[in-house]
């Protein structure tokens, strides 16, 4: 099956800093989503981005499907950005399922 790898595994930032999180996947995908899992465990939708670039406030994301990677940019980080960031993909040609395969996650800690 498809492999989804995220880097870096851990990241510590000072408040106000910028960061880039990367997601590599090993096969073609129909869909790609970025999530933020907050300290209470809730998965929060950030982007639905199988291709192209999107921006939402301080966050933006770019997926280059032909090169099998996606990037999540966080600018002017805040302590509330802390948590785990997951990339999840739906493998193309997967038949009747739309199941998401999650990456290993990036644990982000933003210090005041």
């Amino acid at each position: 099956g498809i492999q989804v790898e995220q880097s870096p595994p851990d990241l510590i930032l000072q408040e106000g800093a910028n960061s880039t999180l990367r997601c590599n996947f090993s096969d073609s995908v129909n869909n790609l989503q970025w999530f933020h899992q907050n300290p209470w465990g809730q998965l929060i939708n950030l982007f639905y981005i199988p291709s192209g670039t999107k921006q939402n406030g301080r966050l933006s994301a770019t997926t280059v499907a032909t090169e099998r990677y996606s990037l999540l940019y966080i600018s002017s980080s805040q302590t509330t950005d802390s948590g785990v960031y997951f990339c999840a993909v739906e493998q193309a040609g997967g038949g009747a399922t739309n199941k998401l395969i999650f990456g290993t996650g990036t644990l982000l800690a933003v210090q005041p």
Partner: protein
Amino acid sequence: GAGVSQTPSNKVTEKGKYVELRCDPISGHTALYWYRQSLGQGPEFLIYFQGTGAADDSGLPNDRFFAVRPEGSVSTLKIQRTERGDSAVYLCASSSSSNEQFFGPGTRLTVL
């Protein structure tokens, strides 16, 4: 509007007991998914419903796990003869025709 809801939020049971976990999807979402998340890992797919039928149950770990969605809305995940290894957070997600999945807060299952 209301998001995905799951009940109970926490469930503690003894080894060998039967448990039921409930998921209420976003109104109008025809697709419903169950995932399981163990500590320090990303969610893993269990089963996918399109309407009332299970379109893909390839992620169910064994025949102790079963899920239903009799009216195409609420779903129940059922675990028989629970084992300590079943302890995890069980997440439910739903999606519309756009395929973007939205997750509930999860049920934390602890098997003693």
